[in-house]
């Protein structure tokens, strides 16, 4: 399963280590830092949950179970806000 951020009415910028995004449908601004900022560009291109977990393990040197939990929480938050496409 490939997860991908929607492209319509969603714009974003990377500032230093942070992602600032505007969800045009809800006129909602998001500030994403830490592990979310690492995962965001991967979700722009499209990535599987395994690839996201692997990116966190490599980026932060954390164990796989914690990376999987962080990834699931982040993906769930994005999904709840309607930012992911199927």
């Amino acid at each position, binding site marked *: 399963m490939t997860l991908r951020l929607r492209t319509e*009415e969603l*714009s*974003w*910028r990377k*500032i*230093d280590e*942070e992602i*600032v*995004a*505007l969800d*045009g449908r*809800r*006129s*909602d*601004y998001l*500030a994403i830092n830490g592990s979310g900022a690492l995962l965001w560009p991967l979700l722009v291109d499209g990535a599987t949950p395994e690839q996201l977990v692997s990116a966190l393990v490599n980026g932060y040197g954390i164990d796989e179970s914690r990376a999987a939990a962080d990834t699931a929480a982040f993906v769930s938050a994005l999904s709840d806000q309607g930012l992911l496409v199927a």
Partner: protein
Amino acid sequence: MSDNRSGIWRRVEELVDRAPGTAALRAHRLHLVAVRSWRARGRHVPAGLRADEHSAAIMALAVPLLLARARAAYSGSLMLMKGPEAAAHREDPATRYFRDLDLLVDDPPAAQRALVARGFIEGGNPDDYEDAQHLRPLAWPGVPLVVELHRRPNCPQWLMPPPSQELFRGAVPSRTGVEGVLAPSPAVHALLLAAHSWAHRPLARLADLIDIVAVLDADGRTVADDLARQWGWSGMWRTTIAAADAVLADRSCPLSLRIWARHLRPARESTVLENHLLRIAAPVWAMPLAHAPRAFGVAFTQAAAKDSNESWDDKRRRSGKAVAHAFMPESAHVRTLKRSDE
């Protein structure tokens, strides 16, 4: 000068390094250039400037959203001036600060009605915009960037703005990439940017000169010279472009920069005295001798006028402080005024 674009951006970085502090960088609207430049060189970026960068990104993200909504709402001509359109000509568009979208439209009342019908909300006091160059600002709920629909481009009272139809005739697609949104041709845009800065504070900010040079393409200089002559803007334009050449291309220093815009080359803030001087001296400097008295009259009246929301007593107090602070940087003077108001 416009052939050597990378040279201009190197020069801008030198000006950033020359500025005596963050207040001067903000005064010249170079603070976002400083953030990018310092970060690239591993220098510490103060928290205040990081916050400015964050705010600027929030504004920039809203540009395509608001332009697309305005475009969908109104079927007439929409021409984006200054702000993000000028930013798009920079090596790094994120270094250009803006807080509104200035759109010249062919039928301002109809366009305003169309945007309001689509969900934009009118702000400001209607009386303040009856004769202004733009109609009441329009906001989209939740988005801090505002839209201003222009009846005419902003220019000093002592110059005549060109007819909007003439500006639309030579328009080009906007560099923001939003389909159906126009931008002025490079030469026209450079002239409009110059006129806008002269309507506020002539030769006050380095960023204004950078914008002008950035939008001019290789052929733009000659076209702008010709248009300035046609519109009766030659003095203002010559003064502006000579200042830009001196500051950004190391050309000879014109008298204006030696007399009333001395703060530009050292990239420092203007003092209170210099600020008043440039508002009054600049129009006289830029107009043909026959028109200079009228230009002086307009500039002096503007400088001596009280703000719409202050009493004459307040104005007298403010003027007294300005005299006492004549050699103080403008931002320090403003901070003092705010403290005394609290």
